[in-house]
């Protein structure tokens, strides 16, 4: 297990050195502060909890930004080492290949955790220090941070999978962008299109919920926008939440399953690869 920690440390050190950690923290901090200020400007008179508003805004933007950051951290993890030739020596050391994958994952998850804690955590600190209406929504906010981390983990895992199957870094970049586009943008557009075209209402609520749950970004959205009643009402999702029949833990399980599946598939592909 010591090997995992050594590999993780190296990823964190690399991340600090090539500024990816700094960029991630900056991006997420800028995003969450912007959401807070925008939110408080728009709701100045309506007395809606500013933390809830920040949370909702943050979730709708995190869905785009977090997967992108996670993919950028991870797409290079294996293919970069294949291409540079450093994997040959690493794999000749007394560590199993699954340990190489798991060690890198641990390192990248630490980077994401650091970025989320500083940016989203810093924002909640500012909110509690500046606003009087101290909120009861901070458990929801904490869950949002945890699920954001998990969402990041899904895309780190998917980035590794890309990294394990392609031959060149350039291909990995393309595949990562493509994957992001499909899961984050096109999937929802396609669902929306299908719903609009579906005049006879052939798509039942059940099917729709299942389809939403299959996509990790939608699972993340559903989890956070229905997490507490106050927030559901704020977003107008209370109805859906009540009718969807989704227990609140299900989206988290979906995210966990995605992480597990991506990591298993990556490890499997890596074992099959001849160096």
């Amino acid at each position, binding site marked *: 297990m010591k090997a995992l920690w050594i590999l993780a440390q190296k990823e964190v050190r690399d991340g600090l050195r090539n500024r990816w950690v700094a960029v991630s923290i900056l991006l997420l901090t800028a995003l969450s502060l912007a959401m807070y200020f925008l939110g408080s400007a728009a709701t100045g008179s309506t007395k809606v909890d500013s933390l809830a508003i920040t949370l909702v805004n943050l979730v709708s933007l995190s869905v785009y930004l977090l997967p992108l950051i996670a993919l950028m951290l991870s797409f290079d993890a294996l293919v970069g080492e294949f291409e540079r*030739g450093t994997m040959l020596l690493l794999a000749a050391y007394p560590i199993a290949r699954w340990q190489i994958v798991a060690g890198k994952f641990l390192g990248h998850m630490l980077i994401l955790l650091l970025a989320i804690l500083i940016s989203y955590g810093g924002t909640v600190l500012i909110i509690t220090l500046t606003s009087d209406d101290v909120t009861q929504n901070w458990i929801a906010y904490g869950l949002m941070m945890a699920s954001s981390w998990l969402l990041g983990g899904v895309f780190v895992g998917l980035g590794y999978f890309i990294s394990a199957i392609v031959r060149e870094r350039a291909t990995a970049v393309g595949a990562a962008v493509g994957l992001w586009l499909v899961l984050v943008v096109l999937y929802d557009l396609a669902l929306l299109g299908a719903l609009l075209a579906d005049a006879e209402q052939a798509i039942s609520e059940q099917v729709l919920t299942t389809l939403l749950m299959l996509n990790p970004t939608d699972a993340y959205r559903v989890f956070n926008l229905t997490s507490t009643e106050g927030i559901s009402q704020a977003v107008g999702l209370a109805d859906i939440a009540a009718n969807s029949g989704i227990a609140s833990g299900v989206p988290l399980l979906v995210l966990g399953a995605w992480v597990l599946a991506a990591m298993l598939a990556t490890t499997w592909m890596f074992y099959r690869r001849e160096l």
Partner: protein
Amino acid sequence: MATQPAATVQDEQPPVLIENVSKSYGAAVVLNDVNLTVAAGESLVLVGHNGAGKTTLMKLLLGLVPPTAGQVRVFGNDPTAASAVAQRRALGYLPESIVFDEAMTGRELLKFYAGLKGVDGASCDVLLERVGIADAAHRRLSTWSKGMRQRLGLAQAMLGRPRLMLLDEPTSGLDPSLRSTFYEIIETLRADGVTVVISSHALGEVEDHADRIAIMRQGNVLACGTLAELTAQAALPVRLRLSCAAGAAGVIVSKLQAAGTNAQAESAAGRNINVSQVDTQHVEVICPHTEKMAVLRQIAGLGAAIADVDIRPPRLDEIYAHVMAEDAHS
């Protein structure tokens, strides 16, 4: 230096055992029915052109690729098995044209690899000192020269006192003084009883560091044995160069050519002895290994006319060229 005994290593087993091993990538055959054994403490040098299969052989020993046919055993275990992972603690590997993470310093990098091998970090400084890069160890690798990187490569291969070292083209691209430092270190490892497998195409420099030599070509081992065995196998002639007083060369040539007649009735030419004049004071005699002593006795019989004799047995590069040519004919 930390000594980490590799618990899984079976002592009675040969470090390297390769039986009927073939490896192909699609239609390309990289190794073809190779058989090789390396005993504990022995050093084997693999020679051959690029593409002869030397690097693939090392990857097989490390378990990085599985063989297509045949079996590979390292200390008695299949290197691709999950259980062989821990055994790699007893292996040191220096890949061909080693690549490092440029952003790290030398010491950071060595400590990283030491950690993965379960070797205590204090031994890193000893190793850096030993390979002569202690002064540069705090600098980023992007500022390092090829020779320094190669020394660092050797240092990482020596981490944890491995019992089997696999060195792939360890001296390619190094200047001569660095090469001799490299071989000095390899000699001390051999003296410690480390089994060493070196691949090289620098034939002239490896012959002194090999117990046995395997000559490879396009995935086949054409010949394998000690330098003496290979010499005998190749039946290459010995060259003798005689020095004499200025102008005496012509006389000596005719005397040696005639020498056969008064001895065993056979002329020099009949015994495959070729005598020729190089210049006015040098004569060259080329004879089969079996005739060497007879020729020397004749030369001694010429007395003071001969000032000096220089005997050149065939070198590895000649044997190599011979084996290659023979293989091309068959």
